[in-house]
């Protein structure tokens, strides 16, 4: 079998790009051919691994897998009535988060939602990386949509190591963007720091825009001077060190289509405190503490104090995190993907 993959955009540290590459590795393992293409490629993406979309000359019956993550010109033409195709939605952030700070990103998100709705009516099969995404697709298209979770390559991560010994460290990993709500993370951390003055916060992620980064830095300087570290360009080894030295992973995102860092936190045995929003609840399951809509930063600050200080609770959360990872087992997800593609190929 030959499967070509199409990405809306590719980047060297992009989760969707990593997914496509992980899928390609599986296809090769299964003896399947095909190439990968992206409508837009950031610098640092190897052109041999992911080619420009213009280079794709697909035969009408060619089997294609579209990883949809945002607007890209020309996809409708390529996928219109292409029955031999699967669209996997990695989710599009609602535009409302960007109108104030990055209107161009907001426009792209709006266009992306419209395009996704159109594509979802024309492709062969639909899938989302989470039930949340799949449900969005169902509502858009009126068709069924499967759930094929993110391929989590746990084997590529180093061992968790010993529990952290330094000062209480709160960690969040994710693009510095309005919907990830690092502003709330900083506020909650500042409130926690009143109870634990030596605590520190590490925010790892590439900024959505320099203006947003400056606003977050100002907030951090005002509320917790010297205690917040921003890291935008980290090597994998450094990122793993941050996980190892963290006492708690705090995610207050208002919108996530999946959130791989939650799984990474489970792997490194970091207790997770997260807000139950979008797909976060289904990824965390019962392995973390989930905050509701009625909670606020004081509740988060108190929770951080409890989670950091209660060794019994920490051990329980670590054990639950380990169990939770079984639901995202690589072999299981790979089999699901293979079945989905084989079923489509048989029709």
């Amino acid at each position: 079998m030959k499967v070509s993959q199409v990405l809306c955009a590719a980047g060297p540290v992009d989760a969707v790009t990593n997914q496509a590459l992980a899928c390609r590795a599986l296809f090769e393992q299964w003896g399947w051919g095909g190439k990968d293409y992206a409508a837009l490629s950031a610098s640092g993406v190897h052109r041999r691994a992911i080619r420009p979309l213009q280079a794709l000359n697909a035969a009408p019956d060619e089997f294609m897998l579209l990883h949809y993550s945002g607007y890209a010109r020309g996809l409708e033409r390529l996928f219109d009535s292409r029955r031999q195709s699967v669209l996997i939605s990695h989710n599009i952030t609602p535009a409302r988060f960007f109108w104030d700070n990055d209107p161009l990103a907001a426009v792209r998100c709006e266009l992306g939602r419209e395009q996704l709705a159109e594509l979802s009516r024309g492709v062969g099969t639909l899938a989302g990386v989470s039930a949340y995404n799949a449900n969005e697709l169902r509502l858009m298209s009126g068709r069924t949509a499967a759930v094929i979770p993110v391929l989590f390559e746990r084997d590529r991560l180093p061992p968790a190591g010993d529990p952290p010994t330094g000062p209480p460290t709160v960690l969040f990993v994710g693009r510095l963007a309005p919907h990830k709500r690092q502003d709330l993370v900083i506020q909650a951390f500042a409130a926690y720091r009143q109870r634990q003055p030596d605590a520190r916060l590490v925010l790892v992620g590439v900024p959505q825009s320099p203006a947003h980064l400056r606003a977050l830095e100002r907030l951090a300087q005002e509320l917790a001077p010297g205690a917040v570290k921003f890291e935008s360009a980290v090597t994998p080894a450094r990122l793993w060190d941050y996980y190892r030295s963290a006492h708690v992973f705090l995610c207050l995102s208002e919108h996530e289509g999946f959130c791989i860092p939650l799984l990474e936190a489970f792997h490194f045995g970091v207790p997770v405190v997260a807000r139950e929003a979008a797909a976060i609840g289904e990824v965390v399951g019962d392995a973390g503490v989930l905050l509701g809509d009625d909670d606020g930063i004081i509740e988060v600050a108190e929770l951080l104090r409890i989670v950091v200080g209660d060794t019994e609770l920490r051990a329980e959360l670590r054990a639950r995190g380990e169990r939770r990872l079984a639901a995202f087992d690589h072999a299981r997800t790979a089999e699901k993907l293979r079945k989905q593609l084989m079923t489509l190929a048989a029709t």
Partner: protein
Amino acid sequence: MRDPREALEAARRAAAQAGDDGVDQAPWSLEHTPITMRQLVEWAIIEPDESLVYSTRRFGRPITALKRLLIHILYQYLGQISAQQSRFNAHLIARVLQLEGRVRALEEAVSASSEPPASSTSRPGDRST
């Protein structure tokens, strides 16, 4: 404590006792606030800011310097492009303002025509105004 839900309840109780400590909290859920016309007008005219050139790479300083040098070299060309975009933006804003004015005028006309005329409250045969 072994149950995460128990931890959350304990945190909620502690938070209720602690009060807000005078913390000025950002909204838990973000709502989009419509952009004002003044902001749109400010954004319409593009003024390239060299300080916004940056690199997120580990050793990004020479790359940033190179990018700034390129901007200097291409200054004339970039000026042409941004002038073209600014002209389009300004015309678009002018059109939006014009349309807003028309919508306002139409709304006023509609509400004026839907208001009951003063004479309608009069009884038939009543000729007073």
